[in-house]
């Protein structure tokens, strides 16, 4: 892979990869680690499953590369494809969405809550695990939105493009997700 290609932006690579597949290889190389993390967090998929999912995602990206609209970020578009692929995977596997946030246990509270009160309330490992369990009890649509906002660190605009919902809906859902999370935690006696 020529080093000059790695300096190109995603959008430039998309334009170029229509002529030369080598540019597509740069995009794949760039997004494999990010999407692997995303799939790992969003599921309990095995390494083989992840490999299959990544393959399906990039095949779809390549097949539909002419659909990409330059008015949105390439990362939002590829995450949208990954998100839809994950939904299909869950449907095929007949499983309920389960976030795998064990690697995030250390700083899950500071990611989800900004106030010190919560940080002190869920300070030990057991309480942090309780937060992870509570996140997994949330409605499907709230899990997705919290994952994208607080773990993938996407902006409201990007989340709107990934989930194909109006930006206002993103703000409302994040707010409701936090309220539901608080409710679940209170119900389980962590207050």
């Amino acid at each position, binding site marked *: 892979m020529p080093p000059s290609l790695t300096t190109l932006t995603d959008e430039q690579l998309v334009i170029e990869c229509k002529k030369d*597949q080598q540019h*597509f290889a740069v995009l794949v190389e760039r997004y494999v680690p990010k999407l692997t993390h995303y799939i790992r967090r969003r599921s309990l998929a095995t390494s083989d499953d992840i*490999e299959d999912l*990544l393959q399906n995602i990039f095949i779809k990206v*390549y*097949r*539909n590369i*002419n659909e990409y609209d330059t008015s949105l970020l390439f990362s939002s578009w590829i995450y949208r494809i990954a998100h839809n692929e994950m939904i299909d995977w869950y449907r095929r596997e007949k499983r309920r969405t389960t976030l795998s946030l064990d690697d995030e246990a250390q700083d899950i509270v500071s990611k989800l809550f900004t106030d010190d009160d919560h940080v002190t309330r869920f300070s030990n490992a057991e309480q942090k695990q309780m937060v992870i369990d509570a996140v997994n009890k949330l409605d499907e649509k709230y899990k997705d939105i919290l994952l994208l906002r607080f773990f993938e660190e996407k902006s409201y605009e990007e989340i709107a493009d990934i989930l*194909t919902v*109006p930006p206002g809906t993103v703000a409302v859902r994040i707010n409701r997700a936090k309220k539901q999370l608080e409710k679940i935690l209170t119900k389980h006696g962590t207050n």
Partner: protein
Amino acid sequence: MEQISDTTKNILSAIQDKHVTPRSRWYFVLRNSILWVPGVVTTLLGAYTVAGVVYGIMHVEIVQGRVQSTGGNPLFYIATMPLLWVASFGLFSLVSIILLRKTHNGYRHTTLQLLSISVASSIVIGILFYAVTQDSDDNTVNTYYRYPTQHQKEYYERIFPAERMIRQEQPDRQSQPVAPIAL
């Protein structure tokens, strides 16, 4: 040369093995255009409804006449109102909003925004439609009243007594003997 990972290699070889090629840009242009069709139809249907409502407002006496001419049949009352248009407009709106959400940027707008744009466009186009076809509408109405039913005739004459006087048969002066003028 930078090294590429095994995963990337596998993905690229899968693309080659399965002979995956990018779909034509026109495929997406056509698909996007098809998604817009129900939206355009909805707006035009709405415009037709608005034109009908404006017509009803501007020609209230004719609409009343049509109702009266049926002897007050309640079903005709309902048929006279653009209820069917409104219902089909609602149905089309629902379908078109679902499809518009699938267009490139359609999802960025709320249902209320999409509905407002559709209704506002329908009102503007409907008024324009009425204004442009006003003359031909009047002609249609005139044709309708050229051969009125007995009920219509009676009703029309009741609400337009002046016109009745004008239309009253004038004596045929030529066939009548000329009366001598008394001097």
